[in-house]
């Protein structure tokens, strides 16, 4: 069994009014250490699939298991705790907490996990160094560039030692240099530390780096290709 196992997942919004089918019968398995991109035109269901895998949205039918644990039947609080312990998120708009410094943003998730202060501090330093921001740790998001903010977001996503990272259009707001830099960091973390990345993206630069590309069309998997 892989890190993520999706089986026959469908998602229909407004089932009682004007139904909109976002996903239909999607099944896939993501293995540990994958660097996978989910691609497809706008409205094809990429973000919905990521949300369902991440436990942010519940499927209308089908099941999702992460690390062997089925998450589709979990309560709201159980899902929140599950996300906190097992999933790292990187969003298109960085979504750092604006009043916290880079160090505090990274440390925040570990605080939610009630990790000891010394452990939080050590891991924060380690992660910010890994994304090349060891000299920016006390800056707030507004004092950082878009690329730097997204690198802090990656460090934050890695902080709880998640089973995998879900990245929704992580390079969409970045210039070429920043995007390339970010992808280098993610690729290195994937290769050297075995971190599993699952992207939803339109960005060709991300697609070019991915070792597996899943193409969604109208909520269904149209193609699933592995690259060497």
């Amino acid at each position, binding site marked *: 069994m892989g890190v993520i196992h999706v089986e026959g997942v469908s998602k229909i919004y407004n089932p009682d009014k004007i139904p909109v089918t976002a996903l239909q019968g999607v099944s896939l398995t993501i293995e540990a250490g994958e660097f996978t991109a989910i691609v497809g035109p706008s409205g094809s269901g990429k973000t919905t699939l990521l949300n369902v895998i991440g436990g942010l949205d519940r499927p209308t039918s089908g099941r999702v298991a992460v690390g062997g644990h089925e998450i589709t039947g979990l309560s709201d609080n159980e899902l929140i705790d599950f996300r906190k312990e097992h999933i790292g*998120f990187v969003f298109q708009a960085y979504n750092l907490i604006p*009043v916290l410094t880079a160090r505090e943003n990274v440390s*925040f998730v570990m605080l939610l996990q009630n990790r000891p202060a010394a452990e939080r501090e050590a891991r924060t330093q380690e992660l910010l160094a890994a994304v090349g921001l060891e000299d920016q740790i006390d800056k707030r998001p507004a004092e950082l560039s878009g690329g730097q903010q997204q690198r802090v977001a990656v460090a934050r996503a890695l902080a709880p030692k998640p089973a995998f990272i879900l990245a929704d259009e992580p390079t969409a707001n970045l210039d070429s240099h920043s995007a390339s830099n970010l992808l280098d960091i993610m690729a290195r973390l994937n290769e050297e530390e075995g971190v599993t990345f699952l992207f939803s993206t339109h960005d060709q630069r991300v697609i070019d780096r991915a070792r597996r590309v899943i193409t969604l069309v109208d909520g269904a998997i149209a193609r699933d290709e592995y690259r060497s």
Partner: protein
Amino acid sequence: MLVQLAWRNIWRNRRRTLITTASILFAVLFATFMESLQKGAWNNTINNVVNFYVGYAQIHLEGYWDERSLDLAFSGEEVTNLARKAPGVQAVVPRLESYALASTGNNTLVATVIGIDPELEDGMTHLSGRLIAGKYLTPEDQTVLLAAGAAKQLELGVGDTLLLIGQGYHGVNAAGKYPITGIVEFATPELNKSMVCLPLVEAQWLYGADGLVTSLALQLPNQRAIQPALHYLDQQLPDETYEVMDWKAMMPDLLEAKALDSAGNIIVYCILYLIIGFGIFGTILMMIKEREYEFGVLIAIGMRRWRLAMVVWLEIIFLGLLGAMAGILCSTPLVYYFRVNPLRFSGDYASALEKFGFEPIFPTEFRLGIFLTQALVVLAITIVLGLFPFRKLKQLEPVAAMRS
């Protein structure tokens, strides 16, 4: 870090925080000043009546206070000796009080005539300090002190003669002609319009009540000394013969009027706090609405809803605390200033106040309790309103929030 996060969050929108804080500040300032002024005015009135006339407590024959009849006068010697032994009693001040028609030429008025022991009376009510003309009484004088308002109405001054005509003890005629030895200014308009003081012996002669008094006022150091003294006297004096009353029992109308006035103010406070409450609620709504996306993200990355709501609640509490503390800081010097320099009314408004028995001087009451009460009310409002985010965040869908 959650407290730190909440504190920093309120400064994300500095202008809104300052506006909200300022609105709370002005509510606390206004309410504190209003309550201080209202309590100060009432306490001043009560103080004037209690300290300068009635005293903290009095002993009468049973039923005297209701009837105010001279026929209920009594020989005070034995009771005075007993009252002196009561805990806290510093002096027992005898009085013979009745009414008379005060007249001179074509001018007349109904006077409250009070026979006093000049020395004991001065020790309790500092009457000599209220002299504005002439000199104070001695026990042997056959002269009177006249209240300033009465003197004005009768167009009399020091050295003029006042005629008193009335009914004495058990219906005897009471008539006397007295030179005015001094004019005294009473703070209470009611007293100032009608009071005539003469030495006790002379009053007893005037009313044919030799050796009798209508009341024994007890000089006590403070309010706290009232109950022990009353308790002692209740045990020592025969129930059916004497009544021992504190100032609250003697002046229920004054207390009722104060309570009624306070109730009126509570309505004003409620309206004020309702307005402030809506202001704070508006801020809360804006705080939640503009950060919906961020809340969605925080829930997505694993922050439980109650914990997030706690942060927002803390932000609201900080706003309330800041406003309340600023309100106390600003109102303290203001209230203190008007304590030292009371508002003094003049003209028609002063006359209107005097008609209702108020001295037209409103000093503020400077008491920590007033500041704290108002600040705590505002804080309580913010605490209750701060619960709203709990409900809102419970319903928040992270995906929908992040889509907003």
